């Protein structure tokens, strides 16, 4: 890629950071160019984020209607899926799936709740409920 073609699209996903891209200068010599991002990349990143949002939103609704436990929502809200949560906690997937059932989740021990809270990086109080507004932090 020629250095003049290195995209500078200021993509939102970089949050004003720049990434180093290898490109050739007018003499054909390779050099590092700081890029504010390529639309193509930004769109792909946001597409993946939108999918995680969609899953979290759907889970949020189902928690509100009492179909599933808040654990399911918090999992998606932390950009995880069942596989990642299972790996982060060391629990079997079927066990976690069981804990998605509200009446079983309500009976979980403090120890088990602490395990989930730690893997998700939230407090046990937060784990037991839903935030008014969803955010990563």
């Amino acid at each position, binding site marked *: 890629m020629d250095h003049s073609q290195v995209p500078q699209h200021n993509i939102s996903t970089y949050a004003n*950071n720049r990434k180093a891209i290898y490109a050739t200068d007018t003499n054909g010599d390779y050099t590092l160019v700081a890029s504010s991002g390529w639309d193509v990349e930004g769109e792909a990143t946001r597409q993946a984020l939108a999918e995680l949002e969609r899953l979290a939103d759907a889970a949020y609704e189902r928690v509100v209607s009492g179909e599933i436990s808040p654990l399911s929502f918090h999992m998606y809200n932390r950009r995880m899926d069942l596989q990642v949560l299972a*790996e982060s906690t060391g629990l079997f997937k079927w066990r976690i799936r069981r804990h998605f059932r509200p009446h079983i989740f309500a009976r979980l021990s403090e120890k088990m709740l602490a395990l989930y809270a730690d893997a998700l990086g939230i407090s046990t109080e937060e784990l037991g409920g839903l935030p008014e507004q969803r955010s990563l932090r």
Partner: protein
Amino acid sequence: MIRPRYEHGHSAHCESGVMSLMMRHYGLQLSEAMAFGLSGALMFAYLPFVKLGGMPLIAYRRMPRAIIKGLQKNLGITMKMQTFSRPKKGTEILDGLLAEGRIVGAQTSVFWLPYFPEEMRFHFNAHNLIVYGKEGNEYLISDPVFEAPVRCSTEDLQKARFVKGVMAPKGLLYYPAHVPEVIDYAAIIPKVIKKNARAMLKTPVPIAGIRGIRALARNIGTLGKKDLRYAKLFLGHIVRMQEEIGTGGAGFRFIYASFLQEAGRLIGSPQLAEASVMMTAVGDQWREFALMLARAIRSKKSQTIDFPALQLKLEDVAEAEADVYRTLLSKR
């Protein structure tokens, strides 16, 4: 022993960036492109049975840690590498090494590093950075994919170093125990390049190297039969693996072209110079492919995506890339 002040540098990729910066700090001038190329870590792999966020693993390089290991083997560098079962111990050892005045490489998760842009925080556990000091409760961090040094609290870095799961870092720390003063580039460069080119052309497995690219192309050709939302997510996933995670653009192909150019000048090889120009063109083709994918993702539901055209484009890329490796292997 008095060491020079650590100097941060902006790199395209985390692991090659860390190794280049670390070697430079310890007196061996090694650019990022040379670190990447000489590790022999250039690859392509399409692993449909390994899922990352529900998507098949697509890699443009060898496994994490392959750059560190490849450089040890090919350049005669010795690295001290340490993992831990207890997070607290891992933090103590890191603090001890910093107190000795060392700079230390660390493997971390991306998600748990607060200085990453929010929209870039995904559960990827094989990120690499250099810790070069500590002030109060904050580590001074040289993250090669960032333009300037950053900071991170003790608790946050510990969390990021000890996440569990696929490619779990287990608190991995590394630093050089021995750095050679002279390197016999004239002998090492051709050997490493030929080995890498052979691996790309002649893999026994149909999902690695050039055969891996063709396998992915065939898979794209069949996406028309799948659910449209899945198909679009899959195409977006390919773009992300190629462009998003610090690959220097076009899935490391530009970094490798830069390496071929630098290596060719170092040993006076017109063959490598020619291959570098070819590899740049391949990188440009990978980017054209990414652009086609982006357009396909954008298309509205009523329009149908031309999957066979995407397959054809990727097959062209595979053929052009295979040509580069054939050039590198040809005897002149």
